[in-house]
């Protein structure tokens, strides 16, 4: 998506929604993600009946039954409720991480692209430094030096994503600066803050929204990888990655302990990817009217 296209055709909310609704894969993604989130919320408010942390020694490693849909694990805990709590944990971390990264990164990107010179040199320098690390390595290094809880995991992932949002916002803002109405606003003496809020920010929202949806699936994968490596939310809190890690030695006697969290993490990421692709197509002006 380039700025010229954005500026040529101002975004229309209703049309975009229609395009998303018409994209079968985008809708499928939305439905999958919503279903998983509904189950996660139902679990969080206690509607599912089992506590994911309660250990029942008498029913260890039982296969799926009517009482325990996904069976039980090595401590007699209900796998279904643990998977649901794991989804809630992952979703919370991914949303906080990507939300924070989008907010901070977009603001810094707008400032860099609008003022150029000094602020741009500093912000772009920081961006280049953060881009010099492979993403997962940066996330796990950051997670390893912080006190371990869900929030610091989110912070570690957010830091990895900030430069992506800076770069996504900066380029279009630089081009917008040269557009007539922005130049007119600058020369008419409006405050820089007002120009950024009123003329610049609204023009880059669609790019940012698309980037948010694409980043969410990555954030879920990163969180799951971190908890698989033992650097995510500490036990006994359920997390999809650590459940898969623990299941590796149990998989011969109790395959459901790996299959359940494995299938759910894949469904969640597939759903987010489909939704992201659908949104990207819906926001892409080249697809408008097709």
């Amino acid at each position, binding site marked *: 998506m380039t700025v010229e296209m954005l500026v040529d055709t101002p975004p229309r909310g209703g049309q975009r929604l229609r395009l998303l609704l018409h994209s079968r894969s985008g809708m499928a993604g939305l439905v999958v993600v919503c279903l998983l989130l509904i189950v996660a919320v139902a679990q969080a408010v206690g509607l599912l009946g089992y506590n994911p942390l309660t250990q029942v020694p008498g029913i260890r490693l039982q296969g799926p039954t009517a009482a325990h849909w996904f069976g039980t694990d090595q401590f007699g805990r209900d796998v279904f409720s643990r998977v649901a709590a794991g989804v809630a944990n992952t979703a919370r971390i991914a949303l906080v991480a990507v939300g924070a990264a989008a907010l901070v990164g977009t603001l810094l990107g707008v400032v860099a692209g609008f003022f150029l010179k000094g602020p741009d040199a500093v912000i772009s320098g920081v961006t280049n*430094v953060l881009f010099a690390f492979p993403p997962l390595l940066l996330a796990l290094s950051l997670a*390893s030096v912080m006190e371990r809880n869900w929030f610091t995991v989110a912070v570690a992932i957010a830091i990895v994503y900030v430069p992506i949002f800076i770069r996504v916002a900066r380029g279009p803002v630089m081009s917008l600066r040269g557009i007539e109405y922005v130049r007119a606003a600058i020369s008419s003496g409006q405050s820089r803050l007002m120009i950024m809020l009123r003329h610049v920010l609204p023009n880059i929202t669609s790019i940012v929204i698309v980037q948010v949806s694409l980043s969410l699936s990555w954030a879920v994968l990163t969180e*799951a990888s971190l908890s698989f*490596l033992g650097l995510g939310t500490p036990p006994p809190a359920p997390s999809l990655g650590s459940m*898969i890690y623990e299941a590796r030695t149990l998989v011969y006697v109790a395959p459901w302990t790996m299959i359940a969290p494995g299938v759910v993490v894949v469904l969640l990421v597939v759903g987010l990817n*489909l939704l992201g692709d659908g949104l990207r197509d819906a926001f892409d002006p080249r697809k408008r009217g097709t």
Partner: protein
Amino acid sequence: MSIPWRGVIRRILSMLGTLLGVAVFVFIMLRAIPGNQITAGLGTEAAALTPEQRAALEAYYGIDKPLLGQFFTWIGNVLTGNLGFSSRSQVSVLSLTLNALPVTFELAVLSIVLALLIGIPLGMLSASKPDSPRDAIGQLIGLAGLSVPSFLLASALLTILSAKFGFNPNGEAYATLTEDPVRNLRQMLLPSLTLGFGIAAPIMRTTRTALLEVRSQDFVRTARAKGVGMRRLQVRHILGNALVPIVTITGLQFGYLLGGAVVVEQIFSLPGIGRQVLIGIQGKEYAVVQSTVLVIALLFVVVNLLTDILYRIIDPRVRAE
């Protein structure tokens, strides 16, 4: 083919600036650990230290000096090849790193080769008839590659193959390519398949998009009109022009692999550079983590620079600028 020297030199200078920033960042990051290297490394035993012992340890690690001094000492050491010492394995971090790098490099090359072998044909298949069943199949495989976490695929492959077929080459001690090529390649098979499958997805998507975009351009129609054969058109005109984005994404992925293969190296017990970071983190050996992360960032930046140069060489539009 000429190399655009001016652009290359400018890029190298900005890369050096970035690397200095990377060093500062890594240095500050490890100072953010709760407590300091001594208390973090010793854990609860740190409480039993007498003030004299503590002071002696602080002097030994150099953390009694001002931060700026510590930073320049570290950088000076790194530049002269002293990356620190791993007390756990009783060898220098430099020799650890020199042993680990070939493992990761081999893994990265094999994974990229597999990814290209899967990704480019799939992308061509998808692009050959957009919105057809074959496009759907190609896209579905691409989506699976993007969505199945590498640790899940690796765990599943490892458990299924070793339980059902008794195939577990990674259970034995690691052999380098020169020591025992057959064992080495058997040990590289599952890890590079896992990584290759994941990386094939972005390569497949990029190939598909690039082919569709190039195909719709005027020069293709002109070529067809002047009677260029179908095969020559496909390979020379279309694939040749679509190569630029494919090279870029491949270079980027190769860079990720040099440091991002942590999970796969860990699962298959490959003694690569990513695993070295992880072992350093688990053993709270911050000297190992600090220097290894710096080395990985250096490699990542250099690979990205080389990709950028290659891209300037093969793309006539960039070359003309």
